[in-house]
C-alpha cells in the first residue's frame, strides 16, 4: 500500500477496464518506489501538476541512449522515487514472447528496479519504469546476459518496430519481422550512440493497413505492397455473396480506384487502376489476396508536430523488392543519414530537413530519380529553381 492515503487514485480502481493503479498497488508493499509512486501521483491528482524534474543525463557505460533519467521534485517526501529512471529494453520483433522470456525479464526487473513496466512504450520498447542510477549498469548486464539489449533514445536510431506480418497475418507482403530484426542488428552502433541531428525512427508494416501506424510516426516507413494483380478466388467470392455480403455496396462503392466490377456473379478488378488500399481484401479475406509480386513502398519523414507541424511520411520509393539482407535499403538509409547528418540542423527531423532543402535537391543528394508517385500533385507555385550556370558547366 501507499504510505499515504490515496482516495483520488482509489477512484481509478473502479470500473470495468483494468486499472494501472491496481497494478502499482500490486507492488506497493514490495518496493518503496511503488508506494511512493502512489503517493506522489496522488499529490499530482490533488494539485493537478506533475512532480518530475526535467531530464537528467544517466545511462549505461558506452551507450548514449536507452535510459531516460528522471528525478522527482519532492525527494524528501517520496524518497522511493527520488531516482525514477526508465530503461528502454529493445523488444523482440512484433512483441512475441515465450512465458520463459517474460519470466526472465520479470526476475531481472524485480531484482534491479520497481517491478513496474510498460508493455510497451509507444516506440515499442519494453519500458522498465523506475530504476535508481546505481541499478542501471547491473540491470543492463543481466539483461545482456539473458540476451536482451537496450533500445534507443536521444538523437539516435530509435528501436525499429514492426507489425506481426508473416508470423500471424495472411497479407504480409514481406517479412516485416525479419526486416526489423536485420535493421536493428545492422545499425546497433547508430542505435546506441546518438550521432544524428535528431531521432530517426523506422517502422515496418506488412501491407497498406499499416498496423504499426508507420506512416504517422516513423522517419522511414516501410509498408508492404504488391505490384501485380490482386489474387481472386472466384468460388469464395460466390460464397461471400451467398452468405449475404452486399458486394456492390460494401466493396465496389468503397473502392477508391473505382476499379472493381461485380455483376452479381463475377467479380473483376481492373488492376492498373487499383490503388492498393486493401479495402476489398479486408472485407473478403477468403476470396481476395494481395498479388504475388510483393515488396514494399518506402516512405519518408513522418513525425509529431514540433516544430514545423506534424508530417506524414511521403513516398520515396514506390516499390522495392524486399530481399534479405536488404543491402539496397541499408545503402539508401545510409545515404539519407549522410546527407542529413551533413546538413541537418540540431533537432531537425529528416522530414523537416527535406522541406527545408527541397525534395528535388534531397533526391539528387541521395541519388534517387524524381518519380511522379512521390507527389500528390506537382507544384502549384511558380517558384522554380534552375541551375543553368552549373548545368552549363557540367555540360562541358
Amino acid at each position, binding site marked *: 500500500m501507499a504510505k499515504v492515503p490515496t482516495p483520488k487514485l482509489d477512484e481509478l480502481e473502479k470500473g470495468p477496464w483494468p486499472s494501472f493503479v491496481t497494478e502499482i498497488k500490486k507492488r506497493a508493499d514490495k518496493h518503496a518506489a511503488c508506494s511512493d509512486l502512489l503517493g506522489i501521483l496522488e499529490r499530482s491528482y490533488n494539485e493537478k501538476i506533475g512532480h518530475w524534474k526535467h531530464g537528467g543525463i544517466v545511462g549505461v557505460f558506452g551507450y548514449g541512449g536507452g535510459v531516460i533519467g528522471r528525478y522527482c521534485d519532492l525527494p524528501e517526501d517520496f524518497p522511493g522515487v527520488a531516482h525514477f529512471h526508465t530503461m528502454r529494453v529493445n523488444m523482440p520483433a512484433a512483441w512475441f514472447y515465450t512465458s520463459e522470456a517474460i519470466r526472465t525479464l520479470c526476475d531481472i526487473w524485480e531484482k534491479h528496479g520497481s517491478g513496474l513496466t510498460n508493455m510497451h512504450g509507444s516506440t515499442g520498447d519494453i519500458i522498465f519504469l523506475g530504476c535508481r542510477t546505481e541499478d542501471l549498469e547491473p540491470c543492463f548486464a543481466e539483461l545482456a546476459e539473458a540476451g536482451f539489449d537496450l533500445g534507443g533514445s536521444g538523437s539516435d536510431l530509435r528501436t525499429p518496430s514492426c507489425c506481426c506480418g508473416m508470423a500471424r497475418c495472411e497479407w504480409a507482403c514481406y517479412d516485416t519481422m525479419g526486416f526489423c530484426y536485420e535493421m536493428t542488428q545492422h545499425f546497433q552502433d547508430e542505435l546506441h550512440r546518438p550521432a544524428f541531428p535528431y531521432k530517426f525512427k523506422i517502422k515496418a508494416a506488412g501491407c497498406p493497413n*499499416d498496423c504499426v501506424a508507420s506512416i504517422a510516426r516513423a522517419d522511414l516507413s516501410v509498408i508492404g505492397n504488391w505490384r501485380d494483380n490482386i489474387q481472386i478466388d472466384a468460388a469464395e467470392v460466390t460464397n461471400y455473396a451467398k452468405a449475404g455480403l452486399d458486394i456492390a455496396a460494401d466493396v465496389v462503392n468503397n473502392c477508391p480506384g473505382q476499379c472493381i466490377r461485380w455483376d452479381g456473379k463475377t467479380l473483376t478488378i481492373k488492376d492498373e487502376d487499383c490503388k492498393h488500399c*486493401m479495402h476489398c481484401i479486408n472485407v473478403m479475406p477468403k476470396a481476395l489476396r494481395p498479388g504475388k509480386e510483393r515488396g514494399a513502398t518506402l516512405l519518408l519523414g513522418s513525425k509529431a508536430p514540433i516544430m514545423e507541424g506534424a508530417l506524414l511520411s511521403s513516398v520515396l520509393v514506390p516499390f522495392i523488392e524486399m530481399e534479405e539482407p536488404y543491402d539496397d535499403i541499408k545503402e539508401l538509409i545510409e545515404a539519407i543519414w549522410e546527407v542529413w547528418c551533413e546538413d541537418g540542423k540540431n533537432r531537425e527531423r529528416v522530414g523537416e530537413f527535406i522541406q527545408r532543402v527541397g525534395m528535388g535537391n534531397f533526391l539528387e543528394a541521395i541519388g534517387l530519380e524524381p518519380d511522379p508517385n512521390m507527389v500528390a500533385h506537382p507544384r502549384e507555385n511558380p517558384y522554380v529553381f534552375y541551375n543553368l550556370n552549373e548545368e552549363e558547366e557540367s555540360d562541358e
Partner: protein
Amino acid sequence: MAEAPAKRITDIGPPHHKKFLPPVILNNYGKWKYHEIPRPGVLLHVGETGDKLWSVRAASPRLIAIDTLRWYADLADKYAGGHLRFTSRNNVEFLVTEEKNVDPLIAELTAAGYPVGGTGNAISNIVHTQGWVHCHSAATDASGIVKCVMDELTPYFTSMKLPGKLRIALACCLNMCGAVHCSDIAILGIHRHAPAIKHDQVKKVCEIPSVVAACPTAAIRPATVEGNASVEVIEENCMYCANCYTVCPAMPLNDPDTDGVSIWVGGKVSNARTEPRFSKLAIPFLPNNPPRWPEVTEVVKKLVELWAADARKYERMGDWIERIGWPRFFKLAGIEFQKQHIDDFKHAGLTFKRSTHIRFDKA
C-alpha cells in the same frame, strides 16, 4: 554513470524473434491463408496447410506490474503452449492452438478483470504516454484519463457493433508521443500560459541560442533580465508548445489552473479506402478534473456514439465527417465553433474554405 564491468556484453540487439515463435507460426510463417473473427477478441488464422491459430486478445492497462506479467506467463503456459505477444496498441494476445482452450482462457481473463475484445469493428486500447506517472512535460495525466474513458467504452471493446474501427490515442503534451495526430479521437494535454522563466537559471542550465531557435513562432529573444543573461518571451507570439522547456529546464509551463486537454477528431493511419490523415481540433479546452475527468469522458463517449449512430459501414470518423461536413459535425456534436478552431500557423490558408460548396441549414 557506473564504471564499466570487466567483461561487458553490448550491441547484441534484441533476441531473435524466431526463438519465441510457437511451432504453428514457424510452420506457417508467410503461409497464412485467411482469418476469421469467431467472436470478439478472438482471431482465427488458418494456414495454407489447414493449421489453425486462435489469438485471444485481452485489454491491458499498459502500465503493468511484473506480478501481472508473471500471471500472463502462467496463463500462456496453461492455455497457449507458453506463447503470448503484445499488440501495437498494447493489448496482450495469447496464441492458442487448441480450440478447446479458447473459452476457458477468456473466462479466466474476464474473471480477473481483463476484458477480451478489441478486434474488428471495435474500439481497441488507447495508445498513450506517461503523464504524471513519469514525464516532466505532462500537461495532464495519461493513464488516469485512459482508464476513465475506457471504463465508459469497454462495451465497444468487447463487441464488434461499430461501423468501423475507432482508434483513440492520448498524449500528455504537444510532443505527442504516440500517433495521436492521426487518430479517430485524440486527447491531447495542453498548456495555456507562456513559460515562467527562471532568469537566474537560464544561463546556467540552457544554451540561449538553442532556446531561441527552439520556438516555432519566434516568440523568444535573448534579453538581460535583472542582470542575468537570459531570454524573454513575447507573450502574444507564444502558443505554449513547450519546445523551449524541452531544451531549457528553466522555462517550465506546467500550471494547475490553465493546463488541461483538447480533443481532436477524424484522423486515421490505414490506407483502407481513404488516405491517411491528420486529426483536427474539435474541442480546444477541457479542464483537468482528476481523478475521473468527467468532462473528457462524457465528450469522448458522445462523439463515439454520434459517429456510431450516423456513419455508414466502414466509414471511419474522419470519413464520416468529410461526408456530412464540418459545420454539421459541430452542430450535431453541440460544439461551439471558435476562433481557436481556425488554423493560424504556417499553412493556415490551405485550411480555409476556398469554394462556395456550402450546405445551408434549411428552415
